[in-house]
């Protein structure tokens, strides 16, 4: 009777459900699409993961990137949203929101290209400024193992704060001012007001934002492709997404790439479950 849904369901099936199944199946094969015969190798791809140092490096880098960027993002955007919402000038409130959103409408790959030039060791403006202001010697931001991920983190914060600033400040605007007035009478300072009123009342928005930000950061790719070219120095900037792309589309080993992709999926899934438990979020169903 609901055959009208069929084309839509067919699309869902072909491009969402089927590929997931295929991705899992492929991880059990030594799969190279150029070949006609691809052997079933059982768990060999997963066994290979356990002694692949680059995989572990990528795993560590991914966790480092996600668990540094997301909390920073949340804290900074909460503060900014709070500052914006508390401004008296309504025109300025609107302007700041739009301004902070600007990087979000640019293709990540394009803004990464711009930042790559800013970070350049020889002519980058960041080094010029540090040298001019503090007489600091040029730093090879993207070419130093310990600095490449922090550099990508700074860029990602710049590029991705806008959404959360807007969502948080919309949430804050939705909190009736009576709450704050009551708190003012009780003599609560701005910080206690923030923790006792704003944060709890943001509840649902807050956990939605955390979940979405985490999931999206696990999957970020473009800035790594550009800023940590070829995985950065000695793979110090290699993350799982880049490793998957490289393994599948450069090293032509799609089976192994699928195995890595599945670990990324498991990571996201475990994280989401834990996060849901902690926040006890009801997805509304």
């Amino acid at each position, binding site marked *: 009777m609901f055959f009208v*849904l069929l084309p839509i369901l067919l699309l869902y099936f072909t491009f969402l459900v089927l590929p997931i199944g295929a991705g*899992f199946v492929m991880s059990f094969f030594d799969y190279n699409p150029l070949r006609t015969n691809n052997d079933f190798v059982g768990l060999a791809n997963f066994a290979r993961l356990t002694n692949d140092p680059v995989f572990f490096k990528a795993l560590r880098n991914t966790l480092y990137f996600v668990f540094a960027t997301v909390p920073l993002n949340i804290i900074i955007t909460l503060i900014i949203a709070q500052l914006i919402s508390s401004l008296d000038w309504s025109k300025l409130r609107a302007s700041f929101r739009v301004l902070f959103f600007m990087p979000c409408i*640019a293709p990540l790959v394009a803004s990464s290209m711009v930042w790559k030039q800013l970070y350049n060791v020889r002519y980058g403006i960041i080094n010029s400024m540090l040298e001019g202001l503090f007489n600091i010697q040029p730093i090879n931001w993207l070419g130093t193992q310990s600095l490449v991920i922090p550099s990508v983190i700074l860029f990602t914060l710049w590029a991705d704060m806008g959404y959360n600033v807007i969502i948080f400040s919309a949430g804050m605007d939705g909190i009736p001012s009576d709450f704050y007035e009551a708190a003012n009478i009780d003599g609560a300072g701005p910080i206690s007001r923030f923790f006792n009123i704003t944060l709890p009342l943001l509840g649902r928005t807050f956990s939605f934002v955390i979940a979405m930000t985490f999931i999206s950061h696990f999957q970020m790719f473009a800035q790594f492709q550009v800023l940590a070219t070829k995985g950065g120095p000695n793979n110090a900037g290699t993350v799982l997404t880049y490793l998957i792309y490289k393994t599948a589309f450069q090293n032509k080993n799609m089976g192994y790439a699928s195995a890595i992709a599945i670990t990324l999926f498991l990571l*996201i899934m475990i994280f989401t479950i834990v996060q849901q438990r902690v926040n006890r979020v009801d997805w509304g169903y």
Partner: protein
Amino acid sequence: MAVDTRHKRHSIGQYISLAILSLVALFIIAPYIWMLMSSFKSTQEIVQNPGVILPINWTLAGYRNVLTNSPFFRWFLNSAIVATSITVLVVFTSTLAGFVFAKFEFKGKEALFWLILATMMVPYQITMIPIFLIVGELNLYDTLWALILPGAVSAFGFYLCRQFCEEIPDSLSEAALIDGAGPMRVYWSIIMPLLKPCIAALAIFTFLEAWNEYLKPLIMLSQVDRMTLPLSLVFFGNAHIHDIGSVMSAASLIMIPAVIVLLIFQKQFIKGISITGTK
């Protein structure tokens, strides 16, 4: 918390907030300024005059190179076709599926709903290889279809629309059905208008995502005049040389119109994005 302060003088705290926000704003804008200024420089000048922001010799060579030596308008058109088609299709498929799942009962509905929802958690990296192979099997590799068809459905859009449809009282749609209106009429004249804010938000999100997408076209497209804008930036240069001046010109040409669109439709943008956060 727009506390009414019209009659108060602005407190010191207000100015401190303003100062902090202005600093952050400067941090946000600075790369744009650098990009714009560099787009008027030659690569040679960028490389050999570090620390100088304003161009010494203003040149339009980068822009000329981008607009004459590359099919830039073609790429723009490709991006526009892909992003628009995906947006229209996603809005259509999501609202319809959301409507049906919220307002009708049928066998296996629960299971289907969860199946689709579960796909939201799966990273694109798992599905990109099979999708690439499926697209190849369908003979769609290196066509814009390779981006449009897989992009036509969105689990997030489906979820969002179903949430909104649930909130529409059953009495509204039932009353219309009893009055003899067909479900299509109900969908089109009752549900769709009520979904407007949801559709606006979904459309903005989907369009931005499709417009900025890099990984998918990187895999699915190959020939130069089938590329979309985000792929175009590696095009400038010669063999092993990157023509940074031209790259900055191209980046400016990609970003500036988007910024203008944002400024014109800022209210709609902000409202649309705020909505997704409260669902």
